[in-house]
């Protein structure tokens, strides 16, 4: 499917779905990050926790994506990238991302987006400059990919809260998982 079609698909699904205020999401997410900071204190630990929380969300989110977008097969990693950027981002966050900086093997790319609804009203104090505030997105992407048999590594590389001009997440394909039969067949 072409980029334009995917973009239109994302728009249609977003318009036809139930929506809530982005500010409610931003405030709720902010309170969650604050709670994690209170519980764990170290920004690195919080980054890990956010990634784990995102992973738990991602493994369920993928079914929602497939059901609503009716994209039942993903033919390649390259195609999946466009689906994440144009369809999934639009469906959930109402913003569209761009896939940039592909490597020669086509196994790595960066997801670039200027606008992140999660970071509305937020700024990062110096003490937490190691925190990737919206790291939950990395976990979500990782979890979703795992459910479609691709093992990826997802890391934030640029964040507007840290002073960069845009937001960027680097996604690296590690391996394609094969369907494995369950360990105990009893």
């Amino acid at each position, binding site marked *: 499917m072409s980029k334009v079609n995917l973009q239109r698909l994302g728009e249609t699904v*977003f318009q036809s*779905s*139930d*929506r*809530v*205020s*982005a*500010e*409610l*999401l931003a*405030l*709720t*997410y*902010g*309170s*969650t990050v*604050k*709670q994690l*900071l*209170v*519980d764990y*204190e170290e920004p690195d630990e919080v980054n890990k*926790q956010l990634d784990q*929380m995102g992973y*738990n*969300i991602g493994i*369920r*989110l993928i079914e*929602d994506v497939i059901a609503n977008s009716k994209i039942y097969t993903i033919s390649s990693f390259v195609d999946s990238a466009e689906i994440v950027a144009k369809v999934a981002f639009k*469906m*959930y*966050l*109402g913003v569209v991302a761009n896939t940039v900086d592909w490597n020669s093997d086509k196994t790595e790319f960066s997801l670039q987006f200027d606008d992140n*609804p999660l970071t*509305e*009203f*937020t*700024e*990062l*104090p*110096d*003490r*937490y*400059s190691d925190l990737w505030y919206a790291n*939950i997105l990395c976990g979500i992407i990782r979890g979703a990919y795992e459910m479609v048999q691709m093992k990826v590594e997802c890391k934030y590389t640029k964040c507007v809260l840290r*002073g960069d001009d845009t937001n960027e997440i680097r996604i690296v394909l590690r391996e394609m998982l094969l369907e494995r039969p369950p360990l105990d067949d009893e």
Partner: protein
Amino acid sequence: MDRRRKSDGLGPKSTQSFSVLSQPLGNRREVSFSAYALLFSEIVQYSRKRVRSTTGLEEKLNDIGRRVGSRALELVAIREKVPTRSTKVLQILSFVFNPVWKFLFGKQPENLRKVSESESSYFIEERDPLVNTFVSVPEDYGSMNCAAFVAGIIAGVLESAGFPAKVHAYNANDSERTYPPMTLYTIEFSDEVMAREKRPGKRTMLNILFSVGVFMGTFALATNTDTLK
């Protein structure tokens, strides 16, 4: 208007803090409901792992909601262009009932009522709170209601407005509908609020300013990430 942010405002990032604070507030975007529902479910899961009882879980959700509430108050007050601060209990309650709920959830609750037995208690009834849409509570959690999060939001709004109160979410014993039951938010105002209610006149305003000042101070301490108390 002073704004609570998760930063201390000092240090080399202060130029960035000015850009966040000076952004206009007109931007009313939307995100998908599933995104919110998924995030909320994860919040509940996370909180569940860190507590040992259902009351602990409710308290945790309440705490998370409180932070949302105090920030929501400022936003809604600016947007509603409220000319004067609410000084009476009924004023602030109808503010919560109307614009705040609309801002957060896009609808209004069913009812706002006074508890006849106690003069400091009120309750708000809501059918199908937004956050409970995809939540099912297993038997062993008893009367746990995840709308404890919303109760926290209400508590946050009330405290920031100078009306400290305890807010809990309960499942009502509803004879008309058996499932899901109506959610009741019981609001119990603290003694100083009720004492203030009884006092008429200009002194009320001074008392409000004083208590708001105290609370803003304590909130500044509480929300300032320097002091994790």
